[in-house]
């Protein structure tokens, strides 16, 4: 009796391991996460199918095993290994530089005897939360194995130049010495909420609107909303978090969105808004243009607002953050969408962006306005 239980446990363990090794993890035609036979290092299976070849590459990229990953790439056309690695690890302090590939879902789009097109959903873990990236990979058969055809990397070609920085900068000096009442008087920046629209969304509700800095100095802005019931008691209080451009220069307008998951507006009788503005050092540089904005469908058929962010200044923007307000034909804010650009924005160059528009709102969008929040190392 004493040894029966340990024997049963050993047998069960062995069976479970064998099942994991044998089962492909296929779900509805997709290859998910860690691929077959690759649970153990050094046991990379031969890429005899396009799925296996791509899985091997993605797994090596996840493990940052760049030699093996690069070996999965087709050499039919020259590929720079450093640029290949940079494509995965990011550069110039971009968001990708601080991210890690968590997993992937592969779905074949088109496979012939010699060519294959695979669509991959990459799951990244980033400092700003999980990000999903959809990418198409082209594979070709070379001999009896499949290899990934790596696209030519687009390196921005910016001529060397000296760009003077002559934009205004504001510094904040804190007063020291005795606290004589009334002597040290610098008012907080004057900001105003210019619109506020509550609406139900998905399983909860949201508050959307815009804020303007009416002052002549920069302001660090945060918007908070408290939902009140019929008795005036607070149901919930939330802030705009990162769905707002926090640093507003004079006369600058930013959208904001405050999410209330799980709370329906039918229980809400009143909303109390609070906008807090504090003094903050800031610079009018860099200037970022948002070019070629338009609403159309991505290759999954989802409505997106896409465009290019262009850095008109001489400073690298490590992590651009795009925030878009979408309006109906009355000028009312329908939705506020945001997205982080994973690549750094080099001086005098542009990088594409796309933010998703909820399906039920896409047809109502008549106009939009995009602002770009930015984080630059060494400046912030």
């Amino acid at each position: 009796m004493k040894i029966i239980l340990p024997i049963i446990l050993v047998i069960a363990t062995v069976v479970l391991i064998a099942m994991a090794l044998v089962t492909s993890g296929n779900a509805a035609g997709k290859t998910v996460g860690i691929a077959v036979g690759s649970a153990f290092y050094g046991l990379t299976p031969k890429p005899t199918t396009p799925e296996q070849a791509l899985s091997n590459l993605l797994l090596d990229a996840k493990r940052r095993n760049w030699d093996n990953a690069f070996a999965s790439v087709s050499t039919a056309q020259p590929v720079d290994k450093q640029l290949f690695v940079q494509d995965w690890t990011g550069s110039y302090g971009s968001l990708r530089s601080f991210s890690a590939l968590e997993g992937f879902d592969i779905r074949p789009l088109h496979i012939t005897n010699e060519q294959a097109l695979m669509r991959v959903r990459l799951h990244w873990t980033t400092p700003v939360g999980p990000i999903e990236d959809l990418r198409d990979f082209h594979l070709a058969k070379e001999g009896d194995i499949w290899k990934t055809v790596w696209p030519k990397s687009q390196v921005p070609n910016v001529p060397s130049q000296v760009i003077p920085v002559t934009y205004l900068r504001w510094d904040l000096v804190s007063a020291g010495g005795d606290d004589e009442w009334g002597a040290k008087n610098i008012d907080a920046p004057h900001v105003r909420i210019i619109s506020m629209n509550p609406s139900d969304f998905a399983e909860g509700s949201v508050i959307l609107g815009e804020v303007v800095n009416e002052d002549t100095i920069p302001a660090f802005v945060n918007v908070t909303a408290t939902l009140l019931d019929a008795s005036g008691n607070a149901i919930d209080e939330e802030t705009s978090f990162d769905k707002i451009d926090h640093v507003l220069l004079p006369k600058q307008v930013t959208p904001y969105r405050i999410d209330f998951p799980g709370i329906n507006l039918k229980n809400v009788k009143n909303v109390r808004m609070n906008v807090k503005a504090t003094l903050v050092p800031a610079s009018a540089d860099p200037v970022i243009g948002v070019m070629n904005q338009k609403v159309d469908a991505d290759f999954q058929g989802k409505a997106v607002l896409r465009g290019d962010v262009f850095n008109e200044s001489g400073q690298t923007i490590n992590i651009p953050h795009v925030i878009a307000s979408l309006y109906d034909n009355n000028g009312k804010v329908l939705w506020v969408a945001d997205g982080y650009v994973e690549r750094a924005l080099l001086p005098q160059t542009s990088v594409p962006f796309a933010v998703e528009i909820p399906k039920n709102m896409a047809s109502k969008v008549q106009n939009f306005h995009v602002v770009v929040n930015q984080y630059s190392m060494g400046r912030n």
Partner: protein
Amino acid sequence: MRPALLNCGFAGLIMCLSLASWGQNITVPTSAVAGEPATLSIAGSGKATFYLIGPGISNKHEINLGEDIKLRGDVLRNAGDYRVIVCSDSCHSATFFVTAAKPASLSFLVHPSRVPVSLSDAVSGVAFPFDRFHNLVLSPVTINFQLSAGNASLLNRSANTQAGVAWFRTASGKSAGALQVTASVDDLSAKRVVQQVASDPCNLRITGQRNATGILVQTEPVHDCSGNPVPDGTIVSFTANAGGVKSTVDAPIKKGIARAQIDASGAAVISGASGVVMGNELRVGAR
């Protein structure tokens, strides 16, 4: 002299009566001014313990009954109520008040620190007179308020304090620049500075021309409706619509003008806005 008030609930009526009659042995000042010495006299003979409890002070001394007690000015520097308790066989007490001395400083609060020009009731100030020990002077004091921008005087008004406070409210001036605000009592004064800044941009006009890389748009010198130049750093949003595609640049004003490069190859309609103020529209032909 103020008789002591005692709660007799638990101690017994006879004891209360006897204590109440002993309270009349302490003679306290009828009026005392902060910082000035005062004298107490306590009738009786023998030794006693003397307590002085007041704002910022709790003293305890052994005294000889029948002698005057001189309180130094620094002991009575804080205005408020002071309790004198003398205990020998039993304790009795008296209370006297110290009032503020003459004004020696002004606490002057002026708002805002920045104000748009030509705005009614935009600037306000509140003044509290305090004596040299930072006691609030509650007796009426006449405070003179003056506002001047450069050589122009915008306000010269006197107000009497009520309950220790005087205040004013007035419109901001027409020109951008520093506004000097002064509150004064006799030879005392407190000065503050309010920055008058330009109001919202007025008649925002933009011009543009095509160049090799797109369209260069810029504003004419940006002023408010009073002609004051809008400060550098103020954001002007340029928007270009070309063939169903939109481009925007938020550009800060630099030396009175905002400028931006917009990427648009086809014919475009360009507009500018600053805050909630819209400018003109501009049509630029295709490349």
